[in-house]
């Protein structure tokens, strides 16, 4: 069966793809059009119930909730893309280097990766905030740094198994150097593993950004962010409980979509693993 026909039959993959596309659509839409302005404050229209004018109601500053959610999607995706790119590029590079050079280089890189697990994203973001002040750029860097060891480990483990294969031996016998073997044989063979991991790290990055923005260490006002919307909503739980529901649903749906997509891709790219699920 082809990849596509198997993909169409994989229910959780399809659900994940649908949810992810929905968020990407929302983010793209917000670049072109939003129902209202995300920055305009209208105190006369504050804390309104959902209506035809404001589909999900308004926040304490009279801003339209559906607009804020749309712009928040853009923010989350931006953070995810940059943070995962940092982790993917540096982490994969280090992992490939470790697998190609072995010996003390591998030992050093892997010990560094082990070591950085002592600093979860929130903890490194706290350190960065204490030094450079709160802001979305610092949050992205902290989340990105946190991604590096994950990618380094998974790249090295998968690359090592490729290096042990016979076609790599054949390539070496033909006189190819480590650099060419890595680029021509190792990287293409581990790409699927990296894509799956990138999807899962993307979801983790969105969760981390939401948590940091909730704490005031991530996205700064007036830029809308799902995490910050939750922080603002928490002060109004008695007056407007639904304000604390929408952004959370948006985060959970996005993360669920990406996780299902990642798991589905793993099943589809390596059918041997599928039986476990």
């Amino acid at each position: 069966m082809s990849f596509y026909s198997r993909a169409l039959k994989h229910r959780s993959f399809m659900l994940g793809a649908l949810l992810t596309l929905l968020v990407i659509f929302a983010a793209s839409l917000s670049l072109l059009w939003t129902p209202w302005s995300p920055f305009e404050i209208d105190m006369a229209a504050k804390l309104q119930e959902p209506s035809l004018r404001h589909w999900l109601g308004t926040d304490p500053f009279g801003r339209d909730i559906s607009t804020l959610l749309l712009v928040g999607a853009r923010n989350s995706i931006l953070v995810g893309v940059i943070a995962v790119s940092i982790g993917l590029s540096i982490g994969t590079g280090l992992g490939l280097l470790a697998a190609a050079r072995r010996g003390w280089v591998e030992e050093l890189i892997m010990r560094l990766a082990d070591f950085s697990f002592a600093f979860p994203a929130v903890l490194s973001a706290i350190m960065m905030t204490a030094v450079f002040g709160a802001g979305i750029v610092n949050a992205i860097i902290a989340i990105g740094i946190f991604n590096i060891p994950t990618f380094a480990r998974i790249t090295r483990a998968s690359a090592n198994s490729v290096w042990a294969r016979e076609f790599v031996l054949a390539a070496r016998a033909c006189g190819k150097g480590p650099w060419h073997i890595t680029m021509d044989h190792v990287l293409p063979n581990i790409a699927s593993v990296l894509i799956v991991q990138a999807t899962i790290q993307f979801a983790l990055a969105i969760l981390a950004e939401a948590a940091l923005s909730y704490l005031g260490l991530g996205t700064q006002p007036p830029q809308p962010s799902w995490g910050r919307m939750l922080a603002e909503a928490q002060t109004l739980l008695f007056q407007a409980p639904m304000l604390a529901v929408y952004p959370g649903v948006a985060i959970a749906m996005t993360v669920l979509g990406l996780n299902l997509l990642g798991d589905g891709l793993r099943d589809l790219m390596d059918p041997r693993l599928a039986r476990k699920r």
Partner: protein
Amino acid sequence: MGLFLLKRLLTLFVTLAGASVVVFLVLEVLPGDAAQMLMGPDASPDTVQALASKLGLDRPPLERYLHWMSGMVKGDLGLSYTYGSSVRELILERMTVTLPLAVMAMLLTTMLALCAGLYAASRHNRWSDVGLMGLSQVGIAVPNFWFAILLILLFSVHLQWFSAGGFPGWEEDPVQALKSLLLPAISLAVVQASILARITRSAVLDVLREDFVRTARAKGLSPRATLWGHVLRNAMIPVVTVMGLQFANLLAGTIVVENVFYLPGLGRLVFQSIANRDVIVVRNCVMFMASMVIVVNFFVDVLYAVIDPRIKASDI
């Protein structure tokens, strides 16, 4: 076992020393002038200089680092600039909230995950298995601080069974204190348990396919006795690994959740100290948390060897 322990202990100390260097470099050397940071950008040079010499911040970085290290060995972490009290006392005081919270969350996580994972594995591919695993996917996707807010909405705003936050203190009212940690612990545990339940289920399913399980069943052991006597112990390796890794997440989670419930724990101390620019407290808190993660992972490594005696033989 002796050599294995020695090797692990050596790694532990090297990792701790490395972590201290990173924390020191990031929080003290990177900002340039720590005293200026403490006083803010508007402070006059004289006051900054006075503070720098009072706190010893005008000494060379290496000397300051060694001073910090020797203080740590002696249990003296210095004085907090804003609280005026010893940082050690501050951390110990806040740990009376954070530690019980983390322990409660970890216990809840383990209980929920083992029950759900074992049950799902024993009902492999039936509706209850599919349903539980679907639920765990949702659990993984829910941010813990949002789940905490939902719990507040339900139990504090709607049903009014719990207070929406705050901590009465252990001396004042121990029962109330325990109660005020329950919702935070649940919100931390649900997310972690969702991940652990999936790991438990797949680990148990893997072991169930092994030959020795078939032998045990063929010998006449009941499914229950096989599960408890043979499967569980063998399935514990990946479960314990993930639990060790989860501790770091749990700790990061307590920082966030303490802020949701306004609990006076370590997480809130760090935040207040960042707001107060109290570098000395921030530095020691971050180091303390990183050390906890490192030490827990050390114990996980040692625990492997206890669960699976083959590991230490291959490791030496």
